[in-house]
């Protein structure tokens, strides 16, 4: 389907999103809260369908964000879903690895670096920090100095 | 060498001279010193020709000598779990084997009256010793990389030894069943169909024994890791390099004597002819080395057992019929 049909298809999930932003022809941003991210991801991966590229973790000052990037290869459009996690004390979000095994490692990495807990993750182990790195120190959080 | 054991009293003085003379033959000429220098120069030829084939300059003449001298000056590190005695004795056993082999072959080339019946069998057994010593030394290394290299070297040895024996049997049939090298030198078995087949197969077996591409499966196999010599360092590694250099002299010399008719009878013409034949075999080895990739161990085993085996079976049948009917070119 071309870009028009893609936009219409994405509008189907509008009730779970807080905002849709079309930054350019080939760049779409979808905003949602952390609680809805599982359903929106499932829709994007299975129903549209899109190809999962990577996920990003961000420590904004008042919240955490996990951004999931998808690609629609026929038009070259990249769709990013920003999921906001408002709880800074115990950040948690549902893992999408049960239906998207490709996301398993990137979620392990985000957990190692930012400390976001992914619920129902099938294999949560340390991925990229050294073996003797102290537990509970998440290096990319804003409050951690070198 | 059997002349040392003279028991008579008047032979005592002569015995001492004989012993000193044998020591000279083994250690200086044509034994250790001569073969080592010749072998290191031959390995320089291999490296230089490989460099020229690759359009580059290559190392200076004395580079292999510098390598060996440098290795003698480094410290010897033995892994903690290694079997020390076997680890340190293996290179010396290999050196002893190749030293005796090269001394014997040179003696028979220079003075064919020093033969004894069955010396081709002794030469064949001595040729196995360096490979066997390599297997023992690397399996005493207590390293997983070396263990993989050991198992591959064992499989390779089992593959090419059979082909080498069959090639030698072709030669022995063609020369009428004589088991001494001096008689074999008189004839040129390679100038016949079965002899040429056997020569080509024996050339590839020598390529495998020397550890050259395409059969350098044991040493440079895990070149991304290292090989069967992984845990050796310092003087022990220098001994292995010397063993490889001496094999580079002894094995092509063996091929020259068995297949191409040795060095000939007259002094200067024979010397030139012999050196020419040796250089021919060396150039063939280098060209095969530079134009082929490395094969896997299962491909190597299939090659030696199936293809070389069939070629040699054909060669043996041709040799037997040729010998029976007196046709010399079969």
């Amino acid at each position, binding site marked *: 389907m071309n870009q028009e049909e893609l936009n219409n298809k994405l509008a189907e999930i509008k009730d779970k999103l807080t905002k849709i932003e079309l930054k350019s022809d080939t760049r779409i941003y979808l905003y949602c809260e952390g609680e809805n991210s599982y359903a929106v991801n499932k829709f994007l991966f299975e129903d549209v369908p899109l190809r999962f590229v990577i996920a990003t973790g961000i420590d904004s000052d008042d919240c955490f964000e996990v951004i999931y990037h998808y690609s629609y290869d026929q038009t070259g459009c990249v769709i990013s879903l920003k999921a906001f996690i408002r709880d800074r004390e115990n950040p948690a979000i549902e893992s999408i690895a049960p239906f998207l095994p490709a996301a398993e490692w990137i979620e392990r990495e985000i957990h190692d670096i930012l400390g976001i807990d992914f619920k129902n993750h099938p294999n949560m182990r340390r991925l990229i920090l050294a073996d003797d790195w102290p537990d509970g120190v998440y290096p990319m959080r804003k409050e951690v100095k070198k | 060498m059997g002349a040392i054991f003279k028991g008579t009293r008047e032979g005592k003085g002569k015995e001492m001279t004989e012993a000193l003379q044998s020591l000279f033959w083994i250690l200086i000429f044509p034994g250790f010193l001569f073969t080592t220098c010749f072998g290191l120069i031959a390995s320089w030829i291999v490296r230089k020709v490989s*460099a020229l084939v690759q359009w580059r*300059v290559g190392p200076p003449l004395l580079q292999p000598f510098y*390598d060996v001298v440098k290795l003698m000056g480094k410290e010897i590190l033995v892994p903690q779990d290694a079997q020390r005695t076997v680890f340190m004795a293996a290179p010396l056993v290999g050196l002893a084997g190749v030293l005796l082999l090269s001394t014997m072959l040179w003696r028979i080339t220079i003075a064919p009256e020093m033969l004894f019946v069955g010396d081709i069998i002794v030469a064949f057994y001595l040729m196995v010793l360096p490979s066997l010593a390599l297997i023992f030394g690397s399996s005493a290394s207590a390293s997983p990389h070396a263990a993989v290299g050991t198992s591959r070297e064992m499989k390779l040895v089992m593959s090419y030894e059979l082909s080498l024996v069959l090639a030698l049997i072709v030669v022995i049939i063609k020369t009428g069943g004589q088991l001494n090298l001096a008689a074999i030198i008189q004839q040129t078995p390679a100038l016949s169909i079965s002899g040429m087949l056997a020569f080509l197969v024996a050339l590839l077996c020598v390529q495998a024994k020397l550890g050259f591409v395409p059969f350098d499966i044991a040493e440079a196999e895990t*070149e991304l*890791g290292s090989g069967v010599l*992984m845990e050796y360092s310092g003087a022990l590694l220098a001994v292995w390099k010397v063993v490889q250099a001496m094999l580079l002299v002894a094995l092509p010399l063996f091929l020259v004597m068995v297949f191409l008719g040795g060095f000939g009878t007259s002094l200067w013409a024979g010397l030139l002819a012999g050196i020419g034949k040796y250089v021919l075999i060396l150039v063939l080895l280098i060209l095969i080395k530079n134009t082929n990739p490395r094969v896997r161990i299962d491909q190597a085993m299939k090659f030696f057992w199936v293809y070389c085996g069939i070629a040699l079976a054909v060669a043996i049948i041709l040799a037997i019929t040729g010998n029976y009917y007196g046709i010399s070119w079969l």
Partner: protein
Amino acid sequence: MSWKIWSLKKSPWVFHVNTGACNNCDIEIVNLLTPKFDVERFGIKLVGSPRHADALLVTGVVTRQAAPRLQEVYRQTSKPCVVFCMGACACDTGIFRDGYHVVGPVDKIIKEVDPNAIIAYVPGCPPKPEAMISGVVKALSIL
């Protein structure tokens, strides 16, 4: 000058160690060992085991995970040996100075094992193969 150092200058065998580099320097090192630059004329040969090596070509800023391993590789190199720090990261951590995983440039880690280690520095990001050859030859000539 002792014969050991003299023969080491004539035939330096190298072993390449990557302690957490971005691979740019590693590509240039592999580039260096191809027939185009022909380092065999100096006697330089790439070996597969640190026990055979005379020179360690170390790239990369040393990460926390790689530090004990680099020390182990240095211990397994038979002395006398030279350590070459290739690239800005190995010389003095380069742009990764404030990274959370960086425990220090290569010479700090090596000197923990052996305070008298011979270390040479080849800066650049990445250093050109010609610069690497020039660095190695210069270092060997003043040994």
